[in-house]
């Protein structure tokens, strides 16, 4: 049991309060820290004393109370003040005008900061975090650490501005000049070796994606446009009702009227392919992550890399491995869009209440039945959210995939960019946005429809 700051403060307050809290404190076991706090041995400081003390000590006072985040904020603030004052002194010495004004500004920053924290010190209620009941030894240790950090930071900074030229490794990070080029060269060699050694493997992947994409593209592009429109509208209506139907009709009209029909269907095929690949691999991997802590520990950092690695970084090797065209575009899209599928599937499965799983087990469910009849059905809203994310992220990759010859609407955006055709760029961009919104409404609509069934 730890005493809250409140208790501590009120004990120092007016008499009736103090008595009341004494009683309350007596009720707790004698070994708790609360009992120690009200002992008369604890030295009571007046607000004036605390104000002076914290004003003089500044950030160190915060450090002594274990308020390390505030310590960092205060120290950086004071450094800004110090740097300002330092460069002001340099100007004054050199005779440049404006020096004295800067000096006043720098000192004002420091004084204002210290006053602000001193006010907090007087009214600790502002900060419920502050600990008042620590042993003196612990406070001294913290104070020593805080002082050391401050001294190093202040001395180095002031020296940088006022002193003679600093030892160079302290101003620029001492990087060995050969390291980065060597490692980069090694990576190049590895990639080259992989292309040569596993060429057949990459060719097989390329062929699978190509085959899938061509099939889907045929369905979307080769089919006469009225047929495609009817099917898309039917799906929109079933999923989201008349509102979504109207929106889809409007979007499709835009695509047709501005001459984007074929390209947008090609883009749709690319998105559909990447969604199929993402769901086909993402859902099983998500289940694996939810079920096995070890695979989660392996997969989680890979997902972080996939999501944050700048696209262009893997676009170059993608071209090297799969040459240019649509398959590498799909694969780059998959790398970018798959992580949310895996994460949301895993989340959905982990969110299934333990009690419901236990009930299924108690009625004789095996592991497969548990998955098929309880865990996956209950994870479906989450999986649909993941699918939605995949669609959105795939569409946002369409332009970048256009760079390596994936065609579709991305190509128009790239062309407009190359020839500085702002108007054409906008039209193509809006086509992508409309398509994204249409698909989003359809997927979200089907998710809500699933829930509505139950109401």
């Amino acid at each position, binding site marked *: 049991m730890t005493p809250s700051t409140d208790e501590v403060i009120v004990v120092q307050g007016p008499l009736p309060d103090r008595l009341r809290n004494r009683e309350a404190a007596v009720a707790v076991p004698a070994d708790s820290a609360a009992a120690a706090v009200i002992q008369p041995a604890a030295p009571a400081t007046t607000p004036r004393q605390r104000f002076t003390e914290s004003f003089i000590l500044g950030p160190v006072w915060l450090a002594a109370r274990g308020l390390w985040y505030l310590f960092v904020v205060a120290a950086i603030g004071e450094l800004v003040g110090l740097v300002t004052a330092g460069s002001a002194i340099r100007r004054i010495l050199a005779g440049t005008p404006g020096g004295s004004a800067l000096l006043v500004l720098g000192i004002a920053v420091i004084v204002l900061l210290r006053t602000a924290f001193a006010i907090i010190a007087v009214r600790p209620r502002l900060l419920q975090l502050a600990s008042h009941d620590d042993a003196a030894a612990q406070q001294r240790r913290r104070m020593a650490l805080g002082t050391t950090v401050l001294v190093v930071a202040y001395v180095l900074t002031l020296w940088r501005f006022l002193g003679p030229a600093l030892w160079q490794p302290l101003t620029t990070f001492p990087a060995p000049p050969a390291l980065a080029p060597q490692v980069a060269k090694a990576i190049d060699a590895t990639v080259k070796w992989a292309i040569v050694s596993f060429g057949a493997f990459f060719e097989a992947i390329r062929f699978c994606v190509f085959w899938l994409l061509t099939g889907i593209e045929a369905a979307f592009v080769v089919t006469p446009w009225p047929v495609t429109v009817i099917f898309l509208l039917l799906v929109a209506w079933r999923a989201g009702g008349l509102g979504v139907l109207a929106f889809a009709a409007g979007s499709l009209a835009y695509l047709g009227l501005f001459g984007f029909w074929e390209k947008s269907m090609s883009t749709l095929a690319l998105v559909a392919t990447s969604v199929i690949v993402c769901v086909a691999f993402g859902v099983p991997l998500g289940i694996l992550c939810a079920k096995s802590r070890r695979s989660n520990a392996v997969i989680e950092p890979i997902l972080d890399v996939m999501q944050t690695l700048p696209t262009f970084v893997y676009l170059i090797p993608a071209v090297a491995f799969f040459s240019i065209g649509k398959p590498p575009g799909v694969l780059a899209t998959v790398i970018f869009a798959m992580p949310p599928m895996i994460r949301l599937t895993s989340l959905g499965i982990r969110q299934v209440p333990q*009690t*419901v799983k*236990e*009930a299924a087990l*108690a009625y*004789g469910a095996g592991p497969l039945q548990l998955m098929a*009849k309880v865990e996956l059905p*209950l994870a479906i809203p989450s999986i649909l959210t993941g699918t939605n994310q995949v669609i959105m992220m795939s569409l946002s990759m369409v332009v970048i995939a256009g760079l390596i010859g994936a065609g579709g609407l991305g190509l128009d955006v790239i062309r407009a960019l190359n020839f500085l055709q702002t108007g054409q760029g906008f039209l193509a961009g809006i086509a992508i946005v409309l398509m994204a919104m249409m698909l989003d409404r359809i997927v979200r609509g089907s998710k809500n429809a699933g829930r509505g069934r*139950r109401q």
Partner: protein
Amino acid sequence: MVTRPKSRLETLSERVHHAVMTGTATIECRNLYKIFGPRPKEALAALRENGLGKPDVKAKYDSVVGVHDVSFSVEPGEVFCIMGLSGSGKSTLVRHINRLVEPTAGSIFIQGEDIGLKSRRAMRKLRAEKIGMVFQNFALLPHLNVVDNVALGLELRSLPRDERIATARRKLALVHLSEWDEAWPEELSGGMQQRVGLARALASDPDILLMDEPFSALDPLIRRQLQDLFIDLSRQMRKTTVFITHDLAEAIRIGHRIGIMRDGRMVQVGTPSEIVNRPKDDYVKAFVQGISRLTILAAADIMEPLGGDDAALAAEQHWPVRRPTALLDELIDLTAESDLPILISDGDGKPVGIVRRRVLLRSIQGK
């Protein structure tokens, strides 16, 4: 208040004893231990050999003793209540009976078979066919409607859909929810959800019911209704039941016998009247304090031996006569109307004891 067939209650202990001796108990647990923690086997050895207490095991092995050397058996058709405060291990104990929890040591027999020896597949079959379970938080599947929830056990056994729906509807009728078969669990009140839970437990017509605090989450009025429903069904179907509760009054109302748990140990096992009349220690006594004795204690529990001339006096003054099984409630009716003591005589009309007003009043007080 329900009145049960008295002869059944009277001889239950003996029948249980007989059943255990001849191996016909439906459920039997022998020296069960369950220790949660990183080193259960070491903690178990320490618990058995050095007689460490629960806090010592926690401190020394970072392990929690859930169940501590518990043995009991449940006779066919018996309702066995396990009563204890939260954390006393009762929910853990009941999960041993269908091996949702594996014991650290000890064995469980169901209809004479050691279930610890069963394969996973055989265990699943046992759960699906012989054991129904009801949970405190209902644990209905939110994506299935009421009738599909009831049919869960049958679906997991891959019975044809028509058959399982028909069975589920029959079971829903038992709990008076026939009209709600197409509803979703979230549309039902807590009481109705638990009735669905009960129907689900009955769906595969199991021999054993495990009830894990089934009515604890309900408000008092609904709880009472469901207790009545359960007692009613239980008397019709004679399922062997293990019923977990933290409410002694509920245990007394529902159970043929009660086991009282504390810190993972079974402190006392007995019929309601044994528990109320002869609490084994202060812990049990504290629970018994607030319990009404009127429908639990019988004349046999409180009667005094006959004095030398009591039999003659009784005949002369026409004392009222009752069997030893007469409940206090009935004896009070007699004493309220007449100043005479009550003569207790057995089935052959042979006098066996006497109940005077003073003794009657004191026993109502629980002194």
